[in-house]
């Protein structure tokens, strides 16, 4: 998928664990894990809003568009 989720990067920057984030945004750890590993097909604006609010960042800090065949 061309959309990369940089949730782990933002969590590391904020020195926060996935469990803490899940508690603060009231989302299950399983769902957050799906999002973090890039297995999610879509993300709700409400979820994105909560994540941005807690991590004090912009949606662009969490989501990134990368051309499909571009090497890392």
């Amino acid at each position, binding site marked *: 998928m061309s959309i990369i989720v940089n949730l782990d990067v933002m969590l590391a920057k904020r020195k926060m664990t996935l469990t803490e984030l899940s508690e603060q945004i009231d*989302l299950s750890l399983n*769902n*957050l894990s*799906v*999002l973090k590993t890039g*297995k*999610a*097909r*879509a*993300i*709700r604006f409400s*979820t994105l809003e909560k994540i941005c609010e807690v991590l004090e960042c912009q949606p662009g800090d969490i989501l990134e568009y990368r051309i499909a065949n571009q090497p890392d």
Partner: protein
Amino acid sequence: MQNHLIKTNRFSKVLIGFLSLGMLGIVLITMLISYNLIFFSHEVAKENPEVAYMRIPVLIISELIIGLFLIACILSFGVLFNYWKNRIFSKSSVVLLRIMSLCFALIIIPCVVLIIYTMQNVDGSITNLWVNFGIVISFVAACIFALISNLVEQGLKYKEENELTI
């Protein structure tokens, strides 16, 4: 809203219970018919010695039709069990429904063979009328089950899409 959902769920479970009982009855009756067909074929062969040579081929074709029907009936328990466990939108349900559809479609082949065989050996047999009726029913059942399996497959895709929306 939640109460409504619970009531619907209970109604579904009652319906599944009735359907399972009905299917069990159909399976038992079909097995009984399959068993009695052997004795019936002997009687028919005794009453009509001029077509007695047809007993074994017709019996094999008939048992084949019954066997395919039985497989479809037995597989329906798997689908009903998935429905009972709220797992109707699963790959196993799609596979089971596809096999059921295939079984009904395959029933058409021995039916056609039976018609051709009877036409070649007996003049003006009324059996072919019933077999034609069986072909129509099998075709309709195969189409219905194929349609349901496609429907469940589509539902499964929507379910996965929904589950992976965070």
